[in-house]
Structures are given as structure tokens and as C-alpha cells.
């Protein structure tokens, strides 16, 4: 069955010109699209090659081989077989016969670690709470569709930008200087950074909401705050929850980095273990963090589904 033949027999004369018009438009469009793709791909490839070159990806250099001889090799080829080296150092000796003892030896500091883990999780919790409070409140004036006026929008956006553009580690350095070493500096540093990062994500969510309910509240005589509280918040809540939980997990991991500046948590232990060449401690710590991340990942999935299904009920 030739549909094409049938269809060409069928269409009215007016249609012919529509098809012809399309052919013209399509040809022009295809040319433009190809050019755009071509240019885009070219720019991307050039950037890619350039940065790869700057990043030593194509470097051929003299390396010391296993026998101590010097030879010319391509870095990547020479390095790939050695990737396991560092990890290998951190693998503990576990023998079947003395498994219990070996494990005890591996996790010899578990009491301290559990303490520090608790501290890490608490730092992350506090920091997330601070971040949510700061980010949440500011995300509304920082949304284009919700800001009461232009300068409030400008101010809150700049504030969030600064808070998130400065890396956590830098905030930590600053706060350690101000408040001394310890978890407090860590909490403030991660919290401030989280407020910036969350504020941006939240405000993007805010910018996508349906404005109808807000108008409904406004038309009933609600103030700006009422519009936000009743019209916007319920709409964004599910997204807020998932972003917040994701952030909590990130914060758990970054509070272990923050430990490098003495701001508390497991990071400090990491650092000490590393500098004392307690390599197997590193793998033990890694496992602890891994389990924590998995647990949080899992719990947050469950929590998210529960909260998203929840209704906003009064009283």
C-alpha cells in the first residue's frame, strides 16, 4: 500500500505550497542547525584538547620503572598499572584463622571513630539545619517571580552567591580564626556554604511554581508572607525535602574534609592517620564513611517518599 502516493493524490492545492514552504524552511533550518553543531562541537573539542594538553594527558616523560631504571613512557600508560598502589597499602591483612583478631586490629580505634562519626553527623545535622534556615528564607526574595521588589532580589541573590562561591574550606579557615578550632567553626562554615548552595537550588524550584495559588491567596487579602506560606511553600516542599536530604549527605562528607583545618569530625582523624602512615586506618575510616553514606542515602529515600506523600494538615 503506497500511502505516499495516496496522500499526494489527495491533498488540496493549498497544501502543496505548505509542503513546499516547509521544505524551504527545513533546508534553511538544517543548514543553521548543522552550522551551530559544527561550531559548537569544534569549540568544545578545541577546549577539550587544550585543557587535556595543559593537564599533561599527552605527556611523554622519563619515569623510574620497577627496577629503578629510567625510561621514556607516556604518563597515562605508565601510571595505569600503578593505580592500585596506594589502595594496596591500605588493605589490612585478614587471615581466615585469626579473622576476629585481625578485624579487631583493623578497627582498633573504633570507639574513637564512632565518637567522631557521631560528631561528624551532628556537625552535618547542625550545618544542614543552618543551611536550610538561611537558604530557605532567602530563597523566596531571591526568586524572580516572588521577590517583592528589585533591590531585595538583587541583595538576596548576591548574598547567596557569596555564601556559596566561597568554598567551605575557606569559610572554615576564616571561622577557625574567629571562633577557634573545633566543631563550631565547622558547623558555621558548612552551614554558610550550604545556605548559599541550597538557596540557589530552592530559588530555582520557586521560579518554577504555579503562580495560581499565590494569586488565590492574594485575592483573598493575604499579605506577601501569606502568599509565600500558603501558596508557595506547600508547592515546593517535596523538592525542598529532597534537596535538603541530598545536602545532608554532602555535608556529612564535607564535614570530614573540614576536619583538615581542625574544625572537628572524622576529617581530623583522617588527617592524623595519613600523617602517621596508619594506612589501614584509612580503609577502616573509608568503610565507616561508606556505610554512613549508604545508610543516609537509603534513609533519605524512605523519608522523602513519606514526606512527599504527606498532606499538609492544620492544627
Amino acid at each position, binding site marked *: 500500500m503506497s500511502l505516499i502516493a495516496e496522500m499526494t493524490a489527495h491533498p488540496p492545492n493549498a497544501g502543496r505550497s505548505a509542503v513546499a514552504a516547509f521544505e524551504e524552511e527545513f533546508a534553511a533550518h538544517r543548514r543553521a542547525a548543522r552550522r551551530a553543531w559544527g561550531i559548537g562541537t569544534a569549540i568544545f573539542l578545541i577546549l577539550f584538547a587544550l585543557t587535556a594538553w595543559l593537564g599533561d594527558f599527552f605527556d611523554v616523560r622519563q619515569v623510574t620503572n620497577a627496577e629503578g631504571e629510567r625510561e621514556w613512557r607516556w604518563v597515562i600508560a605508565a601510571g595505569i598499572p600503578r593505580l592500585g598502589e596506594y589502595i594496596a597499602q591500605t588493605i589490612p591483612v585478614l587471615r581466615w584463622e585469626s579473622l576476629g583478631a585481625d578485624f579487631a586490629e583493623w578497627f582498633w580505634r573504633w570507639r574513637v571513630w564512632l565518637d567522631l562519626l557521631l560528631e561528624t553527623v551532628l556537625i552535618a545535622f547542625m550545618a544542614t539545619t543552618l543551611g536550610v534556615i538561611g537558604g530557605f528564607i532567602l530563597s523566596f526574595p531571591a526568586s524572580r517571580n516572588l521577590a517583592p521588589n528589585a533591590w531585595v532580589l538583587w541583595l538576596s541573590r548576591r548574598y547567596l552567591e557569596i555564601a556559596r562561591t566561597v568554598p567551605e574550606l575557606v569559610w572554615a579557615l576564616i571561622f577557625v580564626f574567629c571562633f577557634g578550632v573545633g566543631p563550631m567553626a565547622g558547623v558555621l562554615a558548612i552551614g554558610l556554604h550550604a545556605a548559599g548552595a541550597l538557596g540557589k537550588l530552592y530559588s530555582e524550584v520557586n521560579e518554577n511554581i504555579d503562580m*495560581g*495559588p499565590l*494569586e*488565590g*491567596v*492574594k*485575592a*483573598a*487579602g*493575604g*499579605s506577601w*508572607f*501569606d502568599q509565600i*506560606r*500558603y*501558596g508557595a511553600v*506547600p*508547592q515546593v*516542599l517535596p523538592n525542598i525535602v529532597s534537596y535538603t536530604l541530598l545536602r545532608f549527605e554532602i555535608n556529612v562528607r564535607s564535614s570530614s574534609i573540614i576536619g583538615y583545618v581542625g574544625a572537628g569530625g572524622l576529617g581530623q582523624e583522617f588527617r592524623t592517620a595519613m600523617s602517621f602512615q596508619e594506612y589501614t586506618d584509612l580503609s577502616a575510616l573509608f568503610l565507616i564513611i561508606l556505610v554512613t553514606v549508604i545508610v543516609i542515602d537509603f534513609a533519605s529515600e524512605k523519608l522523602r517518599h513519606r514526606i512527599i506523600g504527606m*498532606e*499538609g*494538615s*492544620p492544627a
Partner: protein
Amino acid sequence: MVDVLRLDNVSRHFGETKAVDRVSLDVQPGQFVGVIGRSGAGKSTMLRLINRLIEPTDGRILFGETEVSALRGRALRAWRRDCAMIFQQFNLVERLDVLTNVLIGRLAERGFLSSMAMHFTDAERTMAIEALDRFDLAPQALQRAGTLSGGQQQRVAIAKALVQQPRIMLADEPIASLDPANATLVMDGLRDINRDEGITVLVNLHTLDTARAYCDRIVAMRGGRIFFDGVAAQLTDDVVRDIYGLEGLREFNEAVTSTQAVHVPG
């Protein structure tokens, strides 16, 4: 309740478009007024001007002695409470329960803290429940608004409008996204309110038949201006043709447009 709503030479421009163009109109208390007109005629804009969701470019809106178009701050919010608005898309907060949605009608009365905490008095809750009950929706009070059907949602919107204790009710194509059965319920609800409580109703409609069936007075707009103002009987086919402009009519296949399942004796 003798305050007349008066539009005095009101205009609203959007860039080049004159959405509402030097409209003057008096609405007597207790009237049921239908506003008809083609898409883009300015019906929605007019209602939004009255509720002050948008500002007039020119002219004044008066309610009795009050100059509505000059209100600010608390007084403006009080005015919005006095003239409740119902939207085509209901504009409920779908993720909140029905009761809270109705209680939103009380927000103008509440202080900052109690409204942020979603805290309402028992009297207010009673009002809300009674309003819902009036539309047979009390059993759904604790359900999420988003889980209701369109018709139910629109009735929730009317209940919310009711608890505002308004003096005027503005409805912008309240039945445009409803099926006939629900549309009937909603229009009947508006008529009851108008009759029982004497609340003035101003309703935009896109269906002439509905306007004919419910409204004391019909106002037609065209190109931002008032084009016709009278009772249903004065709306002859010729007038209607002028209102909608001949070119605006499509020839519908009658079978498709009717959504009735069966011809029940009306």
C-alpha cells in the same frame, strides 16, 4: 449594604494593547451580573482591576464612598477580602487540605505569627466547615485539595470566598474547565449565595446560554469596551453576532459539543 460598585472611565493598557478601555459601569448591590465577550475582550482584566490584582492605567474604581483604586496596605487587603475572587483554574493550593484552603479566606484577619503557624480559631474553623457543608464537601475537609475533581475544587474555591464574608463576589470563567454536571453545581452555588446572602456577583462567562439562564443583567465587552448592557431578553441573535464578531464563530459539529450522556427530562 447600599454601596454601589462604580467603575469610572477605567482603562488598563498592556504596552500597545488596550485590554480595558475607558470602561464606566455601575453595579447595584445584590445584582447577579454576567460579563460575556470574545477571548481577549478584556473580561478577565476588568475583574482583576476590581479586585486590585492589577492597577488601572487610568480612571477610578469606587465602592460607595471609598476610592478602591487608591487603597494601600492593610486597607487594600481588607478590600480584597471584601470582594472575593474565583478563578477559572480554581487557584487552590493543591498540596494543602481542603479545610486549610478554605481558611485561606480568613488570612486577611490574621496576624503575622498565627498565620505563619497556620493557626486558626475554632470559630473560623466552624465557619469553614459550614461553608464546605453548604456544598456537600464537609466529608472531604481533610483531603488534599489536589485529589478532588475539578467541580469539587471549584466549590471549595467558592467556600473559601464565602468565609471571606465578602460583599462582592467576582468569578472569572468559573465553569470553563468543568464538565456540565459540575458546572451546574457551581453555577447553582453562586446563584444561591447571591439570593440567600445578597452578595453581589459579577461573573465572566464564555457560554451565552449560561449567562442567559443565571444572570439578572448581562454586560458584553468587545475590544476592551462595554458593548452591550441589558437583560437576557435584549440579547438578540444580531446583538450576539456583533459581540462575538461573525468571523469568531466556528461551525461546530453539534454532536461533539454536547457532553450529555442521555436526554434526561430536565
